[in-house]
């Protein structure tokens, strides 16, 4: 089987892997790694940690392939696993910060530190910093829904398949997230003279 043969559906590749051709799993890794890393990066605001979480997610997905139901929806299956692992990581970070504050120590953990984590040169723009820090301040559910919509271009139905939420809930979460971001990004990026601000006068 050729590496990422677009003619092969995800389910066909899964069947091949389950029939003993483990090496074909690389087709799925190549097919989804970009999106998966993008998703986790936007959720965690930490590109290095995102790669590590994405790698763990792919290993977990592989071990869980026998339990995958072939409904031609492998994408929802893998993003569900990645979403759970990302939220677990975020919760662990929160707990670490909570206990370290309890002990009176300052932490320098990614979601809470003031400066952004090490970014690749192309990511160093001011705009990216502002967007990343604004996303990081969103409540977790709003961030998750918005990241799936904006960066992965999932429909509300697909977001529902990954998160288990209803379409009206997703609509509300995304609308609220945009409302918050409008206030932070549009106001800050234009140095107070934003379109948003001007219109409110």
């Amino acid at each position, binding site marked *: 089987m050729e590496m990422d043969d677009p003619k092969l559906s995800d389910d066909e590749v899964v069947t091949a892997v389950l029939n003993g051709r*483990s090496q074909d*799993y690389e087709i799925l*890794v190549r097919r989804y790694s970009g999106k998966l890393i993008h998703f986790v990066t936007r959720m965690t605001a930490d590109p290095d940690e995102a*790669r590590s979480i994405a790698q763990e997610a792919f290993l977990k997905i592989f071990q869980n392939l*026998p339990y995958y139901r072939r409904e031609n929806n492998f994408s929802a299956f893998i993003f569900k696993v990645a979403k759970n692992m990302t939220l677990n990581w975020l919760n662990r970070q929160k707990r670490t910060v909570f206990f370290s504050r309890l002990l009176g120590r300052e932490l320098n953990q990614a979601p809470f530190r003031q400066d952004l984590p090490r970014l690749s040169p192309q990511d160093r723009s001011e705009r990216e910093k502002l967007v990343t820090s604004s996303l990081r301040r969103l409540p977790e559910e709003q961030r998750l829904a918005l990241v799936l919509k904006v960066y992965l271009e999932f429909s509300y139905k697909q977001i529902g398949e990954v998160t288990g939420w209803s379409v009206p809930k997703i609509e509300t979460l995304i609308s609220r997230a945009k409302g918050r971001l409008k206030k932070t*990004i549009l106001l800050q990026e234009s140095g107070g003279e934003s379109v948003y601000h001007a219109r409110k006068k």
Partner: protein
Amino acid sequence: MNCQNVIPVLSAYQDGELDPALAKEVGLHLRDCAACRGEWEDLQELGRRLRLPPPASDPFFPTRVMAGLRPLPAGRHRLLQAASYALIFLMIFLAGFLLQTSTNGLAKAERLPAATYSAVLLEPQGLGLMAVHEDTLSLFERERP
């Protein structure tokens, strides 16, 4: 349609998630209402600014994933696992049955209350959790000198 109906659905309109009839009404309202059009333009501007490039691709990522894979349990292994659970269950059940029979045979004069059941629960993944009926336990107590 008025502004109060339009503002809450603007985000879904932007995401292309509105019913086509409703989307058409929103579009008509935006053409005529400057205040709602302002909100709409802000949303569009936000959409543009949110767009970020994906992180730089890592050509070694798939290789690292593939190097970390552990072999999947083969179908035959899964069958063997199920068969071993069944065998263990059967053995425990037989042991309970034999124990009950032998106790009844030894003490005819003083008939012990018959043990009704030995229930064995096997967790699907971890071997072990065993529940024994209290009548079975009482048999052991009676046998002590």
